[in-house]
């Protein structure tokens, strides 16, 4: 009898069952369910159902992040409806400027290792970095979750990706993720659950851990998972301890529920296994218009860049800002460099530790934490013909608002180096060497 995968274990728990297998169909109760600027649209579907109140309101979370601060009256109206609905239903809601859903929910430790989180956002795979099962759902499904507190799910097969070796200096989780995308193509995850493991993970900073689970959305995966190590458990523990101390906190509340990290059995059954040796990998770059259109950075050096963007749920954490600062320190940028921290916490820490000052001195523009131009809404959308390089995850045609603005994806060192040079360039050429 083979052992169980992480998803088999965690979905069994969420369904109140003892054992489940890939292929089984279950009704699960997620531990957390969240929506963002699409909350008002979901409410309209919810009303069609005929339900009055959100079932299990303590599990629901709303963020305002996709178009913040509101760029138009219409967006402002949308936000106003969401605030009013949050208040009426007693739902925890994060304000404009607090940050992007995936980052904020992680920082607040609202979802815990071994748990299930469903969000009306495709990058909900992100929460795999905490050892949680995160899956994106449609708006109708979120409305159903509000109405009943549960949703049906088919237990996915698991695709295991093993990362081997220590990445060379200047090669980050982003490069490794892009390389995986190139090797296996978008859709390589084929709506399976992805388990990421291997010695390489120890070489990633805690800020880098979410990058690959996050981009498993581009890989077509249903969810992603990294076995939580000591660092992750310590992160969660510290965040919860902080929340307990908050003035208005009630230690008996749902927020401080017990949890148990879950790990796959060593003899679990995997649908596919893939190993990637990263020890000689070079910095990677995704060319327009698909995240798997990936080449070694050196192959496209010299292409002009008009705008460089450090931000998004994929690449807007403190270590991304610090990487950019390390590259631009003491220099002056040639192309626009936009810094949009993933959360207010990232912004605050970057302010305190001098990172922001370095970036501003080099000529960077700093914006309100949130998604920024990632959906083509506002705050840094390019003109037609202008090339953008960013630390984000999606370079589909038109993603930044206009179809004829080429978008490149890469790691934060490369993004910042391109801002300094005004063209695609290896950061080693700007700072001499990537060795710390």
């Amino acid at each position, binding site marked *: 009898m083979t052992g169980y995968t992480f998803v088999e274990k965690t979905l069994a728990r969420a369904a109140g069952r003892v054992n489940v297998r890939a292929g089984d169909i279950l009704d699960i109760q997620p531990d957390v369910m969240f929506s963002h600027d699409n909350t008002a649209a979901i409410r309209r579907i919810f009303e069609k159902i005929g339900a009055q109140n959100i079932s299990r309101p303590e599990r629901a979370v709303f963020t305002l992040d996709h178009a913040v601060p509101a760029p138009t009256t219409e967006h402002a109206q949308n936000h106003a409806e969401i605030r009013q609905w949050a208040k009426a239903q007693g739902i925890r809601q994060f304000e404009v400027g607090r940050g992007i859903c995936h980052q904020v929910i992680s920082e607040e430790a609202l979802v815990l290792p071994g748990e299930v989180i469903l969000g009306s956002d495709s990058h909900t795979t992100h929460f795999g970095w905490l050892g949680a099962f995160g899956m994106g759902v449609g708006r109708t499904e979120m409305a159903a979750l509000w109405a009943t507190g549960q949703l*049906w799910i088919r237990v996915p097969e698991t695709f295991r990706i093993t990362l081997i070796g220590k990445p060379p200096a200047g090669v980050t989780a982003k490069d490794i993720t892009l390389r995986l995308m190139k090797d296996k193509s978008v859709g390589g995850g084929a709506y399976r659950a992805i388990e990421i493991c291997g010695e390489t993970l120890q070489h990633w900073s805690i800020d880098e851990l979410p990058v690959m689970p996050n981009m498993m959305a581009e890989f077509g995966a249903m969810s992603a998972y990294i076995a939580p190590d000591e660092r992750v458990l310590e992160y969660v523990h510290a965040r919860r301890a902080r929340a307990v101390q908050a003035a208005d906190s009630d230690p008996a509340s749902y927020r401080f529920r017990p949890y148990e990290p879950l790990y796959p059995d060593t003899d679990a059954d995997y649908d596919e296994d893939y190993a990637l040796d990263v020890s000689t990998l070079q910095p990677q770059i995704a060319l327009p218009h698909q995240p798997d259109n990936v080449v070694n950075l050196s192959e496209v050096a010299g292409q002009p860049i008009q705008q460089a963007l450090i931000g998004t749920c994929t690449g807007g954490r403190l270590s991304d800002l610090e990487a950019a600062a390390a590259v631009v320190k003491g220099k002056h940028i040639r192309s626009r460099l936009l810094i949009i921290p993933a959360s207010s916490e990232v912004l605050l820490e970057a302010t305190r530790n001098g990172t922001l000052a370095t970036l501003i001195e080099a000529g960077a523009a700093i914006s309100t934490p949130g998604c920024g131009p990632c959906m083509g809404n506002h705050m840094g959308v390019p003109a037609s013909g202008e090339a953008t390089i960013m630390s984000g995850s999606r370079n589909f045609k038109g993603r930044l608002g206009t179809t004829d603005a080429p978008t490149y994806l890469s790691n934060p060192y490369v993004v910042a180096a391109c801002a300094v040079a005004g063209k695609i360039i290896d950061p080693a050429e700007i700072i001499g060497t990537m060795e710390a």
Partner: protein
Amino acid sequence: MTNTHRCWVYGDNVNTDVIFPGKYTYTLKTPEEIASKALEDLDPTFATQVKAGDVIVAGRNWGMGSSREQGVTSLKYAGVNCIIAESFSGLYFRNCINQGVLPIVCTGLHLTLHTGDSIELDIANHTIISGGNHYSFSPLSPSVQKIFDAGGLLPMLQKQFAAAK
């Protein structure tokens, strides 16, 4: 009960962009308009020639890509109530159930068929008969069957909530 259905046969990895182009997702609203664009970038003959009761028979990973619900509803509005594939993308499978279109996972069938061929479908007995061969498929799980029988997720919940009042 066995019914005869005409088949539209396609290959592996058909994505939702070719099933229903993204550029129409916010502009087209009526079922007729949405149906008129079904499979536009995969098979331009489909939308004009499809008849109510036709089925789709495809290879692996049908419906990969975006989660847009029109990937299913465009076919449903065009008269397709059943899609048979070697496998479905997870999100597409969910959307089928939620929109009341029957997804059947069946291996080995699509390579034996051509567009225009007919198959016999016996849903109650989970059997497809094609060219004298019988293919069986798994029933939906009871909870999913319940959603499907109600016509989809929204109608099911509407009924539940109306009954509770």
